[in-house]
């Protein structure tokens, strides 16, 4: 029996006159990988920001394991097991790779020594342990993205949300990330993955949510969604949909 880990109920987000999210509702099941797709500007990042407390919600509710976490501050959200990465990498540039991850590790280990041990594990798990002593700001983008995943992992999330973690990676690199995602699933982590590269995410996800202009236009398995005329229209325009 699956249980809900996250419920989003009738969520609205306005930026001044712009409605970025409009009545979005969905439920995430524990242990699943969900792909969140949609054209640029659809509101995917905004949805992440609302859930993780980085931007205030205009209307609606967000329940995490039955608890109302709407408009909780980000640090409180992560303490309850809900971690995320950012589309535009957010790392601590002037600290070493290891120190970046240690900061997250301090949630579980008060001492520097203990945090270092946890950080080393997370770096290994994310496959960037060879950068341990490097200044984070000086890494190439793909390594920064990995680092961000390590930073999220070390907080021990039950729900991990990745915002375009594979963008800009080479095929070999994103296969590594795919593998990492599947491994995390095996460990029982629930994942929401925003991705532009469909081929990168479709084969590994259990469910797909499609967002367009702030509205959830479809949800289901990868196959169901790919055949949905609204989705085809949103991605390829009216003409293509009519011609089919």
């Amino acid at each position, binding site marked *: 029996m699956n249980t809900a880990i996250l419920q989003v109920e009738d969520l609205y987000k306005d930026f001044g006159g712009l409605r970025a999210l409009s009545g979005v509702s969905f439920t995430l099941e524990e242990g699943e990988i969900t792909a969140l797709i949609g054209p640029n500007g659809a509101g995917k990042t905004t949805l992440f920001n609302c859930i*993780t*407390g*980085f931007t205030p919600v205009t209307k609606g509710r967000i329940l995490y394991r039955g608890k109302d976490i709407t408009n909780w*501050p*980000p*640090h*409180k959200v*992560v*303490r309850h097991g809900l*971690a*995320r990465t*950012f589309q535009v990498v*957010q*790392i*601590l*540039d*002037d*600290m*070493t790779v290891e*120190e*970046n991850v*240690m*900061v*997250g590790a*301090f*949630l579980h280990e*008060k*001492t*520097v020594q203990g*945090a270092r041990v946890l950080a080393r594990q997370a770096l290994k798990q994310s496959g960037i342990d060879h950068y341990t*002593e*490097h*200044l984070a*700001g*000086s*890494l*190439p983008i793909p390594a920064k993205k990995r680092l961000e995943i390590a*930073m*999220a992992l070390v*907080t021990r999330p039950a729900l991990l949300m990745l915002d375009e973690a594979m963008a800009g990676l080479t095929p070999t690199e994103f296969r590594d990330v795919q593998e990492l995602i599947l491994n995390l699933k095996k460990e029982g982590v629930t994942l929401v993955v925003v991705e532009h590269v469909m081929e990168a995410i479709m084969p590994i996800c259990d469910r797909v949510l499609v967002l367009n202009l702030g509205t959830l236009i479809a949800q289901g398995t990868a196959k169901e969604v790919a055949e949905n005329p609204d989705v085809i229209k949103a991605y390829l325009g009216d003409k293509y949909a009519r011609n089919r």
Partner: protein
Amino acid sequence: MMELVRHRRFPMFVLGIGLLIALIFPWIVQDRFAQNTAIFVLMYGLMAQAWNIMGGYTGLISVGQVAYFGIGAYTSAFLYTHFGINPWIALLIGGLITAMFGVVAGYPVSKLRGRYFSIATIAMAEVMRISFSNWEYVGAARGIQLPIEKESLLTFQFHSSRLPYYYIILFLFIIVNLVVYFLERSRTGYYFRAIRDNEEAAAGLGINRSFYKLLSIAISAFFTALAGSFLTQFSLYVEPDYVFASSISITVAMVAVLGGIGSLGGPILGALVLIPLSEYTRAWLGKQGQGLDLMLYGALIIIFCILEPKGLMGLWKRISAKKRTNP
């Protein structure tokens, strides 16, 4: 270009030797002006290190530290003259009250970032100076005069020698440095630096930004206030234009920045170089009354900033790196 970080902190033996020299300094150098200068080196070193906690580690660049300095100075002067509270206890209470003030005044401004925060600190300091200038209960523009007492450690007054003042401020200076030393090696220190580097990332890693910013301000305000209380005892009077002078805020920030921020050694080096420079240029050139001393002092600082934008600590690191490459 990827950068590998070698942990080249200020070596501990250098600090040890420095401490030894500091301990015997007033016995070797008996000159009164030099001893006074040394006292100011330590007083500004104390304040610059306190500034470093906020500015260097947490990224809260303050140009209004004199607000904490002045409140500390006034609190201890007031507690002593009105309630006869022992200067040492007044010093401690002054620090605590100022820390509380830092939290209360800091709460609204800690949400501001970068230059907006800095501007708010200037405003805060000015508001304090003007308020104290008009506050009749604490003597308004006249300030507070402390009565002269018999000299003893208990009364915090010494008339026959500067030495006790020197050792007291050295003691306070050592304490703030110890605090920073342990901060660097603690979770709180990592949290401070994380907030400085990237607030969003810090929040995403579970850091309560407001709490840690206010903690940083409170620690910084506490130690800055101790310097203020020390000055009260040292000069036996407080006056708004004296203990709330904006030049103090600027000097403190400059000592820290020139020394190199975000490291233990920076403010120490900064105070060791800048304060004697300012005191001696004033002694030599200040009498002509044409601001020649300030011009020279300013020019030296500008030249240094151009040559070594990472501060004296940057210079130190370059020198020690060279030593390593050609042994």
